[in-house]
C-alpha cells in the first residue's frame, strides 16, 4: 500500500491510474476466466490455446474477431463522445437497430437502381436514422430535462419491437421459415478483403481511421475541449460561454450516428439480411468497452478487439469443451464492475491522500 501512495506522489496523474485500472480489470477478468476453466475441469493451457485459436489464431478467426471488433468499436467511439460530455446514452442498442433497419430498407428498395452509390447512400441513411433516434432523448433532455438514461433505455425496446414487427411483417421474406428479410442485393455487400472471409474494407478502415479521428476531436479541438468541460460541470461550461444545450445534442447525435453506422455495417458486412438475431447486446457491450477503454478511442480500439476476441475465443472453447455459453457475458459484467470500481477507488485515494498544493 505504501508503494502505491508513493506512486501517487510520484505522479499526480489520474490518467495513468485509470489506464492501470483498465489493465487490472482485464487481469482480474482473465484470472476469473482461468478459474472458471479450472472449475469446468479443462486443461488450462489447452483452454487458453483454444481461446487464442478461436480469436486470433487462424485467418478466419482474425477476420471474424476484427469484424465483431469494428462494430463494437464504432458503437464505443460514439459513446466516448457522449460520455465525455456527461450524457449517459444507454440507447446505443436502439440506435444500432435503427441504423440496421434503415440500411436494409435502403438496400432492398433501391438496390437495383443505384449501383455503386448504394453502399454510401445506405450508410448515410442509417447514420441519419441512428442520429435521429438519438436526437429524441437528446431533445427531451435539453427541452424538458428528462433523464436521458430512462428515455434511451425505453427507446431501445421500442426499436426492438419495430425490428420485430418489420421482420414479421412488411420486410419479411415470404419464402422463409424465419422472421427475416430477404437478402440485400449483392452490390450492397461490403467489399471483402479476402473473398471467403467476411472482414471487409469498410469496417476495417472505419475501425482504424476513426480512432485517431476521435482522438483528435477530443484532444486537439475546441469542440472536444468543450465536451470535456461540459462533462466535468455544466455550470463551468455555461460560465465558459459554451452553448450547453447544443453541445449535449451534438454529442448524443454523434453517438447515435456512429451506432447507426455500426448497424449498417452489421447488415451490409455481416448478416446481409435483417433478422432479430442482429440484436446481440452490442449497445451494452459498447458501454463496457467504452469504460474499460477509459473513454479514450485507442483504449476503446484495444478493448473492442479484446472483447471481440474473448467473445469469439470463449465461444470456441465453449463449443469444443462443452462449457455452458454465457461465460463471455459474465466476464463482461466483471470487467465493467471492476474497471469502474478501481477507477473510483483510485480517484478516492488520490483525493484523500495526495498533496494539496498551496496550503
Amino acid at each position, binding site marked *: 500500500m505504501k508503494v502505491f501512495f508513493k506512486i501517487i506522489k510520484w505522479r*499526480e*496523474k*489520474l490518467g495513468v491510474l485509470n489506464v492501470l485500472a483498465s489493465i487490472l480489470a482485464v487481469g482480474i477478468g482473465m484470472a476469473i476466466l482461468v478459474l472458471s476453466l479450472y472449475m469446468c475441469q479443462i486443461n488450462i493451457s489447452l483452454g487458453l490455446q483454444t481461446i487464442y485459436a478461436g480469436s486470433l489464431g487462424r485467418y478466419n478467426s482474425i477476420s471474424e474477431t476484427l469484424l465483431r471488433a469494428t462494430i463494437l468499436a464504432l458503437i464505443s467511439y460514439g459513446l466516448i463522445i457522449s460520455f465525455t460530455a456527461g450524457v449517459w446514452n444507454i440507447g446505443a442498442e436502439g440506435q444500432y437497430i435503427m441504423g440496421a433497419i434503415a440500411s436494409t430498407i435502403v438496400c432492398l428498395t433501391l438496390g437495383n437502381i443505384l449501383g455503386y452509390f448504394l453502399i454510401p447512400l445506405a450508410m448515410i441513411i442509417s447514420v441519419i436514422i441512428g442520429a435521429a433516434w438519438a436526437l429524441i432523448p437528446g431533445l427531451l433532455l435539453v427541452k424538458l430535462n428528462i433523464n436521458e438514461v430512462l428515455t434511451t433505455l425505453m427507446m431501445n425496446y421500442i426499436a426492438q419491437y419495430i425490428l420485430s414487427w418489420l421482420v414479421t411483417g412488411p420486410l419479411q421474406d415470404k419464402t422463409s421459415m424465419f422472421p427475416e428479410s430477404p437478402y440485400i442485393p449483392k452490390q450492397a455487400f461490403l467489399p471483402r478483403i479476402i473473398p471467403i472471409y467476411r472482414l471487409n474494407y469498410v469496417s476495417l478502415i472505419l475501425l482504424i481511421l476513426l480512432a485517431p479521428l476521435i482522438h483528435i476531436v477530443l484532444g*486537439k*479541438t*475546441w*469542440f472536444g*475541449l*468543450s465536451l*470535456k*468541460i461540459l*462533462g*466535468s*460541470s455544466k*455550470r*463551468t*461550461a*455555461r*460560465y*465558459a*460561454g*459554451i*452553448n450547453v444545450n447544443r453541445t449535449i445534442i451534438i454529442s448524443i447525435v454523434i453517438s447515435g450516428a456512429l451506432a447507426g453506422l455500426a448497424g449498417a455495417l452489421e447488415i451490409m458486412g455481416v448478416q446481409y439480411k435483417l433478422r432479430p438475431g442482429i440484436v446481440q447486446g452490442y449497445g451494452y457491450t459498447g458501454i463496457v468497452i467504452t469504460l474499460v477503454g477509459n473513454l479514450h478511442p485507442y483504449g476503446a480500439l484495444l478493448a473492442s478487439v479484446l472483447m471481440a476476441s474473448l467473445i469469439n475465443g470463449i465461444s470456441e472453447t465453449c463449443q469444443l469443451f462443452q462449457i455452458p455459453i454465457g461465460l463471455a457475458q459474465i466476464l463482461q459484467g466483471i470487467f465493467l464492475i471492476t474497471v469502474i470500481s478501481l477507477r473510483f477507488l483510485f480517484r478516492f485515494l*488520490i*483525493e484523500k491522500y*495526495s*498533496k*494539496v*498544493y*498551496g*496550503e
Partner: protein
Amino acid sequence: MANSDDKILLQTINISKTYPGGIRALDKVSFELKEGEIHALLGENGAGKTTLIKILSGILHPDEGKILYNGVEVAFKNPLDAMSLGIGVVHQHPLLIPNFNVYENLKLYATIIRQRLKIEELTNLLKIFKVEKSVLDKKIADLPSSIRQKIEILKVLLFKPKVLFLDEPTSALTPIEVEELFNILKDLKEEKKSIVFVTHKIKEALKISDRITILRRGKKIATLENKGNLQEDVLATLIVGDTTLKAVSEKVEGLPRNASDEHVLVVEDLHARDDLGIYRLKGFNMKLRRGEILAIVGVAGNGQKELVECLTGLRRFDKGNIRYFNSIYTHIVDFCDVVRKYKVSYITDDRIHTGIARDLDFLTNIMLRDICIEGRGIFIDKKYFVKRAKEMIAKYDIKAPHEKILVNQLSGGNIQKLIVARELEVKPSIIIAEQPTQGLDVKTTIFVRSLLLSAKGDTSILLITYDLEEALSLADRIIIMYDGKNVAEHSSKDIDLKRLSLEMLSGVT
C-alpha cells in the same frame, strides 16, 4: 419592554467558528437573549450573523465556546436537538422542498420535530398571514417567493417555539407585509416568546427590536438598548467600522487614476427577474469608462447576482439594454460572441463549482476563456498553451508542480489565482470581477488586488463586491446598489463613509 433583570434564556459564551478554507466567521462572540424580548442582530454580509444562527440552531458546530440554555450548557448535535428545546428558525433561504406542496412541507416539519399538525391552528395562522387556504395544495416551486417566505415563517410559528430566530425574513416581503409580520412578532413578544431578528436593514432593526447587537467581521461590536434614541448614522458607522477608512489611504498610488471619457460598458434601465419571477433589477443604470475600476457596492441580495448574470448572458432581462462598446444588446443570446468581439473577461465568485472544471487538469482550465475567443477555429495550439501555462505558473506565483496537475489538487487560493490569471491573460478590455477576494487569506487577497490594479489602464474593470473596504481600496468610482437600483455614485476621492454606509444599508440618498 424587556427589563435588564429579565431572565436570560439563551446565551453564548465566546463562540468561535472557522470555516474550512480559513475564513474566521465568528470570533469569540458572546451573545445573550432574554425571555420575551425582540433582539435584532445587525451587520454587513459576512459579519457572521447567519453563522451564529446556524450554530444556535444546531446546523453548525462551534469550534470553541459554550451555549447555555436556561443556564444549562447544551451541545446541539443536529437541528433536532435545538428544535426539541423549542428553538424555531426561519431561514434566509426557505428550507422548503420545492417539489412538495405546502401541506407536505408542513407535515414534514411536523414529522421531524415529532409533533402533530393541528389543522385549526394552521387555518388560524393562514388567516393571520392572509394566505389563502388553497395554497396548501400548491407546490412550493409554483409559489411566488413572498408566499414562500410567509410559509417558512408560518411553518415555524405553527409549532409555538419558545425561541424564534428570523434570518432576514423581510427580504422577499413587501412593506405592507413587513408591517404585518412586525405585528405578529409583537404579539408573540406579549406571549413571552424570545425573538432574534437578523437583518442588515437598520430601519427595521430600530423599529422592531428591544435590543440590538452589532456584529462586524465575526466580532461582536456592541449591544445597545433600543429605547427610541438610537441614531441611524451611529449604527451605520458601527456596522461598517473605522478600518475601512484606513483602507482608503492604503490604496496603491501612482497608477493611472483618470480614465478617458469613452464608455466601454453601459447599462441602461435594466429590469430583470430572478428564478422565481421576482424583479431583482428595477431600472439599474451604470456606465463603465475605459481604463477605470468601477465598484458596485451593496448588501447581498440587492440584485448584484442578477446584474452579473444579465451582463454575461446567463439571464434574460425584460427591459432596458446593455451596451458593450458600440453594440447595443436588448438581450444577450450568445455571451461567447461578446467575449470574442470585445475580449470580455469574467471572474466568478463561485470559483469551485463554476470557475473551474474540477476533474480536468491545469492546462485545460487555462484554456477555458479561450473557447470563446479562439474557439471558432477548430484546433487547439497545445504547445502555445503549455508555454502559456508555464509562464502563468511563474508569473502569478501559482503553486502547481506542472501544468498537467488536476485542478482539484490545488488549494482555494491557488484556484483563485488560476482564475484571475486566466482571465487576465486573454488581455481583456473589460473584466467583470465578482467578489474576487472572497474567502482568501490576507496574502492572496493583496496579491489578487494588486493584479487587478496593475491590469487597470488598458482594461476597464467592473468590480462587484459586498465588501466596502475592497471597493474603497480598488475603485476609482463607486456605485451604491440598493433594491435593484443604483442609489448613489461616488468618486473615490471624496468619500463620506457615514453617508456611504447609510446609503448601502437603507438606500437613503
